[in-house]
């Protein structure tokens, strides 16, 4: 029981971090960034390259992965999203293609086989019969720290309030002197950074492989659909629902079924409550 609780909490924290970068873009830019999983892919491989190929300190490698994610987010906004502004289908298809292209690039650079990341912090703690790797604990704690920092940023800075404003009323934001393009670019930068960092943690949870952008994308989409548009609190709650559901299913039913219930939940919510559990257009 305690084991399920601990594993559920750890996994849910990570899922919340994975989903929040995607939620940000969806609530502010109103587009589904289907290349979101690619941030995690690139972030994970960048970390792998900097630590295990070049031998940089782990902390520096996480930072560099974050910088690369940030740059990727900005480039994606400037080269794809801004020119295609208003055409959501085109943006969504281009981002999906981009994810596939990035996957091929990773295969070309690092090969097809999966890689194991060395733990960020080695060691395992035994709690109530459950083995809790320090790495997973670290990932969960860092996820919470990042999420709280993001929440404070959005609630109490001018830029954060401007992001909320653009998501709630574009004209109201414009006549308040907010440049929506700039706010959008900042949002894409934050989203890319969060995605890349989440990728490092996600890869250390599972393993590094070129197709690893799909699973986090499904988690992120699930959280947005189940939680409703863009509420950070909603994102947190739903990440915990999904995280705990996966842990419960793989503990008491079968590990192979863990992803299935997430998908069934998506479909059920789409049919029963299309606006999501917490659906209101808020950050």
């Amino acid at each position, binding site marked *: 029981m305690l084991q399920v609780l601990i594993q559920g909490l750890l996994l849910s924290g990570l899922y919340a971090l994975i989903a929040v970068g995607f939620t940000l873009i969806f609530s502010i830019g109103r587009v589904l960034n289907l290349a979101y999983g690619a941030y995690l892919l690139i972030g994970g491989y960048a970390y792998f390259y900097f630590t295990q190929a070049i031998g940089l300190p782990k902390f520096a490698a996480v930072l560099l992965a974050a910088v690369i994610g940030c740059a990727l987010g900005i480039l994606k906004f400037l080269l794809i999203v801004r020119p295609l502004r208003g055409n959501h289908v085109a943006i969504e298809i281009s981002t999906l293609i981009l994810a596939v292209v990035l996957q091929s690039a990773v295969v070309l650079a690092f090969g097809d086989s999966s890689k194991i990341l060395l733990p960020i912090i080695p060691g395992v703690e035994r709690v109530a019969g459950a083995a809790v790797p320090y790495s997973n604990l670290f990932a969960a704690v860092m996820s919470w720290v990042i999420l709280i920092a993001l929440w404070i940023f959005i609630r109490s800075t*001018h830029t954060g*309030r*401007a992001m*909320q*404003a653009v998501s*709630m*009323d574009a*004209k*109201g*934001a*414009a*006549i*308040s*002197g*907010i*440049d929506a393009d700039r706010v959008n670019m900042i949002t894409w930068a934050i989203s890319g950074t969060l995605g890349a960092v989440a990728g490092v943690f996600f890869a250390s949870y599972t393993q590094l492989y070129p197709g690893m952008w799909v699973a986090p994308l499904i988690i992120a989409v699930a959280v947005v659909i189940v939680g409703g548009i863009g509420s950070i609190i909603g994102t947190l709650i739903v990440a915990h629902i999904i995280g705990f559901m996966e842990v419960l299913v793989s503990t008491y039913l079968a590990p192979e079924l863990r992803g299935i219930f997430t998908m069934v939940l998506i479909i059920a919510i789409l049919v029963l409550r299309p606006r999501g559990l917490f659906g*209101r*257009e*808020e950050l």
Partner: protein
Amino acid sequence: MALLEIDKLSAFYGKAQALHEVSLSVGAGSIIAVVGANGAGKSTLLDSIMGLTKTTGAVRFDGAEITGCKTKEIVSRGIGYGPERFNLFPFMTVRDNLLVGAYTARDDIGKNLAAIHKLFPRLAERETQETSTQSGGERQMVSLGRALMSSPRLLLVDEPTIGLAPKVCLEIADVLRRLRDEFSLTVVITEQNANFALSLAERVHVLETGRLVAEGRPEDLANDERLAAAYFGH
């Protein structure tokens, strides 16, 4: 001296033309009104001043051309706007709505908040309420407050009385006069309610299907048949 000068301004939505060579000027420290029936182009006129539509012609503010400027630039030069539907941020508190208005004037937040709370004591009481749960009158106050947070010299207000109870209309009129007299703001309002406009403004311009058809002082226009014609047809 004219604070705002509009010279042959035309506005377009796609191929449809919503304003036809509108020219008018607004003297500093005055309240002027643009009246007209629904669909006459009143909101389009104010949106166009704010750089929110596609236009030809010229708009000058304080002697400098602002045609083609970004809305952000126009706001920071000193034009505040309270739009017809308010365009508030529904799931933010009153206070946060006001703070968004301070995006371009961050140094004046303390001073402006104090002035707004003096003008609208109710906003001070309701600071933590979300605007989605407020009445129309309160939303109008938040909307005006948000515009004032940008430290404007010119305030544009689209239909300040629309949907409001008569008592609230009088309060709003009082606030607009105080903004002119105590804060030396220049105010441009649009109105469907011609009587409200005639009682408040020093000059009134009559807009009919995108064209200015008459202008003058309220006492001269009150019995002008062109005013009635703008509402009821010729």
